[in-house]
């Protein structure tokens, strides 16, 4: 609040101090419907926007799709970026492979090697893929693509048909690979102030690696690989 008169500002402070103490309406903000703004959402409106799928299958729509049907859709809409076998083109993500690599030096996290739930695949393809045209595929196409990507990872057989009954039953290889309770803090340094370590050795330096774009001048488009 701006005021050109200093005295009125002072008045406002004292007046509101008294008012606040005697006005009960602040407390009732806790009650449901106190403000009541907005319009109520109809079932139809909610159904159109509520697109999330849970591991237990909640949210999966009617419809179905087979591995074979998925192959055709995949070739048309996905292979250009993710590769015909899910191997990933350029820096686009791999969708298949990487089994047994998670504890290796160069882990490959894919749908097959890493993802804990098959429901996430349906959910994500439907909401975000194909990259340039998200939410453009039909539910049947998404079922078919889900079946196909699972098959590329040898998680389902070639005769698998994905629908709202079969998909939640699919067990992903890395389902038990996650701890969903944050264990941190797992590292806690000590606050030593004097003579904290004997020797200091520089083990690596960024100097001369030529990986750093320029931080002066216009945007540096140079280093791409």
């Amino acid at each position, binding site marked *: 609040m701006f005021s050109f008169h200093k005295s009125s500002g002072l008045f406002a402070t004292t007046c509101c101090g008294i008012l606040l103490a005697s006005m009960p309406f602040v407390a009732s903000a806790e009650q449901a419907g106190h403000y009541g703004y907005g319009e109520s959402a109809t079932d139809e409106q909610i159904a159109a*926007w509520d697109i999330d799928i849970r591991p237990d299958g909640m949210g999966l729509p009617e419809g179905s799709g087979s591995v074979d049907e998925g192959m055709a859709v995949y070739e048309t809409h996905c292979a250009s970026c993710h590769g015909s076998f899910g191997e990933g083109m350029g820096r686009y993500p791999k969708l298949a492979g990487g089994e047994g690599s998670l504890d290796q030096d160069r882990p490959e996290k894919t749908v097959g090697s890493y993802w804990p739930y098959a429901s996430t695949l349906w959910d994500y393809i439907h909401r975000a893929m194909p990259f340039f045209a998200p939410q453009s595929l039909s539910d049947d196409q998404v079922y078919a693509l889900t079946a196909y990507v699972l098959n590329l990872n040898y998680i389902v057989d070639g005769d698998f048909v994905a629908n709202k009954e079969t998909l939640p039953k699919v067990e992903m290889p890395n389902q038990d690979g996650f701890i969903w*309770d944050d264990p941190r803090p*797992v590292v806690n*340094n000590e606050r030593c*102030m004097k003579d904290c370590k004997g020797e200091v050795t520089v083990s690596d330096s*960024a*100097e001369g*690696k030529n990986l750093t774009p320029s931080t002066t*001048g216009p945007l540096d488009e*140079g280093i791409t690989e």
Partner: protein
Amino acid sequence: MLGKLRRLNRDVPKVALEESERLPSAERRRFLRNGLFTAGGAMVGGALAGIAPRALAATQYPPEIPSWTRTLGAGVVTDPYGVPSPFEKEVIRRNVPWLTADKVSSISFAPLQHLKGIITPNGLFFERHHAGRPEIDPQLHRLMIHGLVERPIILSMEDLQRFPSVSQINFIECPANGGMEWRGAQLNSLQFLHGMVSCAEWTGVRLSTLLQDVGIKPEGKWLLAEGADGAAMTRSIPLEKALDDVIVAYAQNGEALRREQGYPIRLVVPGWEGNTHVKWLRRLEVGDKPWMQREETSKYTDLMADGTAHGFTWVMEAKSVITSPCPEMPLRGKGIHQIEGLAWSGRGKVKAVDVSVDGGQNWQKAQLREPVMSKSLTRFSLEWKWNGNPALLQSRVIDETGYVQPTLAQLRQVRGTNSIYHKNSIQTWQVNADGSVVNVQLS
């Protein structure tokens, strides 16, 4: 003259120079000097490149009276929406082209080396988009709140602004900040190493106010937040956090959110992974279980050396970094220097910051600059007399929970080198005898 100058400034510098050719010589000199600051960097770097810049600049030094003192400046509303001086044109967000397949699902880094205080200017706030930055008409944008609630609703942006508002200063950090350095030192730049953190004053409605108004059913335990972008970005958030300090923000540092920051509305989830602060928010659903979305399973989970992964690692643990000197801001000569930096913690306030100039053998307590706020950036400084010898600079934050920022070796020992996210270890800057500064790692 003023009219002429204004017209000239809109032309390309080369044309401007030719035009100046036609002015009488005294006028011409004045025009060129004026051009130096009115047309700014473009002229310095472009048409005037042929004229030795030092000679020109020197004419403004004492005893000379600077040209800008002897002329009139630009009038009000020359820039109805103000922009930085053209001399600041290098202070910009930057990206690392080799990091991502394209710029649509990508990251840009805030120029921390140039920033002062703790607030990130809106145009320099780091960006992370998964499907690009949508252009949303706020008149047409709606927020739906549904699921396990008594009264599912759809709110317009005007509805939202009728609720009582709150403002709070919070940092947002992408958990992948510094994630390129797990295996070794790669990038030689403060901006690229740590620029995925920014801090702003956020104004909006407390999520608890909204949720209480629609009435949460007793079974409600989780919240799903979803964006209206092409990624329809989603994250599951426990209701406990949602009802604690989360806000649905519509303003950033006093003005409407920038598009890159989620215009017209975003979630601000203080202290938690940047990705949970869902931008372009369009939907909030209350449920009894988490949804296990792609961004909380395939991504934003931390792979340990044994092949198991930690999920729901939401909190950004305490971290600090020296911002001056740094690779972009080398030391200019021996003598007194103010070592400065930023510290923050997703668990609360910064309690202390220590600085070492010998690679962590000995530490000195730095000074914390007010204000020190919970889940906000905090600036620290320490005066240091540099004798010109090589040095290894480090900073180490201690937050109000007593957590002490770990060394890289300690972090690697427990987390391996494959976890990508949550690399909050101590940064080491090697100062060379010539004052240059290099990103190094200690064993």
